[in-house]
């Protein structure tokens, strides 16, 4: 099912005002309803290599698989939906590619990357993430964070040691507790949410949410939602205007209409008529 007419996607990535190069990597496959954002880490250019490998591996492998599989079907053997399984498998594949490269080539030693993957199918959204890159959602004017960071700071907030207000001032924002390519295996956090026409989803690296208040991000999306490309540029510009200390990347996805996974001939005709 081609989702090019169903999802409007705008992306923007920028090295920021301080860093000399961009270690973030973004990729979008509108036809398959797939968007991937990765924020790499590691010395020299290893961060870029790790994030680039993550997005490339996941997008190419998923494209291949989606060409002859329906994500909404359920695997009869273990009752697991194909979508969740294939996203997990591709994340693991990207993990081992990065891990092996890091093990075999000294200049890449220790590289890794955060990750957010979103797959849109059957009026749903499947999100897998690792680290502190985030997914936000704007629905009917309400803006909220969907993913929960895998970071030391988030753990401290959860255990009540510090409040979210204090967290904004904390120094160790940069310590993540999960990432891609660091260990031989990894368990991404996967969730599924129903989508509605009109929803706007924002994937971003910490370069945006560390520099711009959630409130201002939400306001930008509600004000400029009519022009997604401009909204993406505006968000990056706001991060840079506030100092732009890190690479900034955003992917915006707007759901334009319903996209049920066609289950029969009638459903197919019905979906097509819509």
């Amino acid at each position, binding site marked *: 099912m081609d989702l090019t007419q169903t999802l409007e996607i705008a992306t923007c990535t920028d090295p920021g005002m301080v860093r000399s190069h961009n270690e973030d990597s973004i990729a979008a496959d509108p036809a398959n309803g797939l968007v991937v954002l990765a924020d790499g880490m590691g010395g020299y250019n290893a961060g870029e290599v790790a994030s680039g490998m993550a997005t490339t591996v996941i997008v190419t492998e998923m494209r291949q698989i989606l060409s002859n599989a329906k994500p909404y079907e359920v695997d009869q053997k273990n009752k697991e939906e194909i979508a969740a399984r294939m996203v997990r498998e591709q994340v693991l594949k990207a993990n081992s590619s990065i891990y092996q490269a890091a093990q075999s080539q000294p200049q890449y030693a220790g590289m890794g990357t955060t990750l957010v993957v979103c797959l849109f199918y059957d009026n749903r959204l499947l999100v897998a993430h690792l680290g502190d890159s985030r997914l936000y959602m704007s629905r009917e004017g309400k803006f909220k964070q969907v993913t929960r960071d895998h970071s030391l700071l988030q753990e401290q907030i959860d255990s009540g040691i510090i409040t979210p207000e204090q967290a904004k001032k904390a120094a160790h924002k940069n310590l993540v507790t999960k990432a891609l390519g660091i260990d031989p295996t990894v368990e991404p956090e996967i969730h599924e949410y129903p989508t509605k026409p009109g929803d706007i989803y924002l994937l971003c690296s910490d370069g945006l949410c560390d520099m711009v208040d959630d409130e201002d991000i939400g*306001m930008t999306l509600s*004000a400029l939602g009519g022009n997604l490309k401009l909204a993406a540029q505006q968000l990056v510009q706001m991060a840079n205007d506030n100092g732009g200390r890190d690479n900034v990347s955003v992917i915006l996805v707007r759901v334009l209409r319903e996209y049920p996974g066609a289950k029969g001939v009638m459903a197919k005709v019905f979906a097509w008529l819509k």
Partner: protein
Amino acid sequence: MAKLILSMDGLVLKEIPLTKERTTIGRKPHNDIQIDNLAVSGEHAVIVTILNDSFLDDLGRTNGTVVNGNPVKKHFLQNNDVVELGKYKLKFVGEAAPAASGEKADFEKTMVLRPSAMKAAAAAAAGGGAQAAVAQRQAAVQAAAASASATGIADKDAGPKATPAPAAAPAAAPAPVAAPKPAGQPLGAIQLLSGGNAGKELELTKPLTTLGKPGVQVAVLTRRPQGYFITHVEGAKRPAVNGQEIGAAPHSLKDHDVIELAGIKMEFFLKA
């Protein structure tokens, strides 16, 4: 490293570096900071230091704890906070610069906590050497800071959940706080010149303000450190500034520019 400066009646008595994960304050001699005064409880408060953040915890004894004039139970210590215990004052001084650990740590680079080091720390803690564990964790954090390529995933079982991996990391840069909103620049406003609300004024305090009619013509005014800009958002026709239709790129606004949008004229001006 963060430290406390103990003083009474403006007289500095002692400087206490916060080297430990838990620094106890009280009247009894076993406390790390002993203050022999009846206004201070036996075990009065504790300062928990995690990386380079310190938290003050009042232990709920008879005599309360006051920070900057406000009674507190739990407080996230900021540079120059003053903790009052009876007549005594403890001033908290956060660390200003990375300690002399050779390489300067880039604490804004995203990095992962190392599991091996964390496990070693946990093992040491189990062996009874809590102090050693802190030292090891410090070493782990420093190692992570020293090489941006530090890797590994923090083992969730490595430390007790209540105090996840606390360590007073000496090598740490000041907190990266999001820069304040553009301040000091003159505030802009628009005044409507035509239409039903002619004469009405709108101050542009927010980072962005949308104008126009959705579905017909919408423009956005953005407030940036360089000044104000107008950008076309939607509609077949673009807004005009001083009679000239603007392009797709943001257009910089000058004092007394006249904007025409969705058939309405308005003037942009800067307030003194």
